[in-house]
């Protein structure tokens, strides 16, 4: 498909971007508010010579995803909180097995069956991981349809460069927002990477290869973990991504990802117009967390306000990053008819902190 600007749901922007960037096989199970991704993939992937395979559970989804990823081909899945919970068996496995793939979590209210309304409740499970062991998943949080289209190639490159799953998280409100997005020309970004030195394609291509994440000796387990530790250190060093504005002389910095991060642009321009020294940081990579954005904050910053569509999850990483240099405040909610704080509420809280 050629480049075109479409007015479409952001779930569909995800589907279009994945297919146009080279995803051939998509595995999924219906769940609100992520179903639109698989629906559109079912229609468009055959046009790219691929297929959307509906499985009987997210557990099977993630296992099939892992099996397909073993071939080196670009594969993806999409789900929401309860589905992501089920997928963690294979997510931890794929991290250990060093298999690249793309995943989308269109976040809804949790815990339990929760609510189908949008939320940012999966920050912990995305960045901390819900599977056993010392592993990390690269987590990217786009905040608009255009950023989805722009960040998918980056996600593919990270997945293949580091041979690891990459998870896109987006709150269900943004996921179901309809807006204009310029979708790219078709280009298989995974083709930039040679998979022949690791993919399990049969001994027609190489001497026997075995994918083993279990330990046959205790030293095997130690070696696998040290290899992963070194890889994660490299990712932490090189792949922190964020957007920031007007932090240079700020007294208050608002930190938010996804939709609240997007709202921070309006918050800062409105408050700056009133002479308030406010800036913002919008983390784009949630793991690795953009610690550098926070450690580099000038001494003028006296307070940080974290806003999330949950009860305070990313705030932990902000606090770890500033390491006690300044107070970190929180504003957030999850669920209800209006499952997030409004811009007016964000500004009121910012003013309250400035007035303290």
């Amino acid at each position, binding site marked *: 498909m050629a480049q075109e600007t479409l007015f479409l749901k952001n779930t569909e922007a995800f589907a279009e971007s994945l297919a146009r960037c080279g995803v051939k*096989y998509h595995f999924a199970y219906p769940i609100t508010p992520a179903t639109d991704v698989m629906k559109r993939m079912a229609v468009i992937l055959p046009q790219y010579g691929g297929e959307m395979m509906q499985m*009987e559970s997210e557990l*099977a989804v993630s296992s*099939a995803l892992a*099996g397909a990823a073993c071939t080196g081909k670009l594969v993806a899945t999409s789900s929401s909180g309860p589905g992501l919970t089920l997928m963690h068996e294979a997510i931890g496995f794929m991290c250990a097995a060093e298999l690249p793939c793309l995943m989308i979590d269109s976040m809804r209210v949790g815990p339990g069956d929760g609510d189908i309304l949008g939320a940012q409740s999966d920050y912990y499970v995305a960045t901390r991981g819900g599977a056993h062991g010392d592993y990390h998943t690269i987590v990217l949080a786009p905040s608009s349809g255009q950023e989805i289209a722009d960040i998918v190639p980056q996600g593919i490159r990270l997945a293949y460069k580091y041979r690891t799953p990459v998870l896109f998280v987006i709150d269900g409100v943004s996921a179901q927002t309809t807006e204009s997005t310029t979708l790219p020309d078709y280009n298989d970004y995974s083709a930039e990477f040679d998979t022949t030195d690791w993919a399990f394609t049969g001994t027609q291509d190489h001497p026997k290869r075995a994918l083993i994440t*279990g330990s046959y000796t205790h030293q095997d387990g130690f070696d696998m973990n040290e290899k992963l530790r070194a890889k994660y250190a490299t990712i932490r060093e090189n792949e922190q991504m964020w957007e920031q504005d007007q932090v240079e002389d700020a007294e208050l910095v608002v930190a938010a990802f996804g939709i609240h991060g997007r709202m921070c642009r309006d918050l800062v321009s409105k408050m700056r117009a009133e002479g308030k020294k406010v800036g913002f940081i919008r983390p784009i990579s949630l793991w690795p967390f953009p610690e550098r954005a926070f450690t580099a904050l000038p001494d003028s910053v006296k307070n940080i306000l974290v806003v999330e569509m949950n009860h305070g999850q990313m705030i932990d990483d902000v606090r770890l990053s500033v390491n006690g240099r300044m107070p970190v405040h929180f504003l957030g909610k999850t669920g209800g008819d209006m499952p997030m704080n409004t811009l007016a509420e964000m500004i009121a809280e910012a003013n309250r902190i400035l007035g303290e």
Partner: protein
Amino acid sequence: MENLSSKYGKTLNLDKLTSYCPGCGHGTVTRLVAEAIENLGIMERTVSIVGIGCGGFSHHYMDIDAIEATHGRSPSFAIGYKLARPDNIVFTYAGDGDTCAIGLGDLLHAANKGMPITTIMVNNTVFGMTGGQMSPTTLEGQVTTTTAGGRQVPHQGYPLLVPEMMRAMPGVKYLARESVATPKAVRKAKKSIQKAFECQIKGLGYAFVEIIVPCPTGLKMKVKDSYARCGNEMTDYFKPQVFKDETEQNDVA
């Protein structure tokens, strides 16, 4: 050292020291699988997806690519793999615990999808690797470390008849239960395993072979006694038979 590949083929790796216990039925089944792959000339494009448990060792004795899946998920792994690499031959190999306890859902949906995949389920009626616990196929009254008084039905369930559950599925094109209790049974098992791979080569659909084997260690029996049990109590309940053979259909691959 004598080169044994002229006698046993290139697929079977005889240089590896076996991890199977003395008398274990896996050794026979692993060899039969390797011989089927060898005979069909598909070694270079065959990939083994093994489960967790003693069956996970099987790929070490074959010079083919292998993927050690998560526990019970090898059928779903195989679906993903086959979708992405339809020209390769993919088979799953696991025991009764992996295949029909934790993995039953994955197994039945894979069978029902009817994609050309081959599954070998090695049934010894016990969780062997963890030291002899009850599995879904543990026989009524059978003593294991978790059924000290013997398996009580109905409370602890009835021994699960897995191929019987697949019989009505149209996507399953080859379906059999065999055993390794006697040389004659082994010859029949060899035939069924080969057919299960042919079914996939022809692109016909899903193929499943359950093989009843002894686990002298898990059952705490002498090897000879465990084979006698395999040929009697085990196969009295798990009756060896070819449930379905539609491999003579025209190729669709």
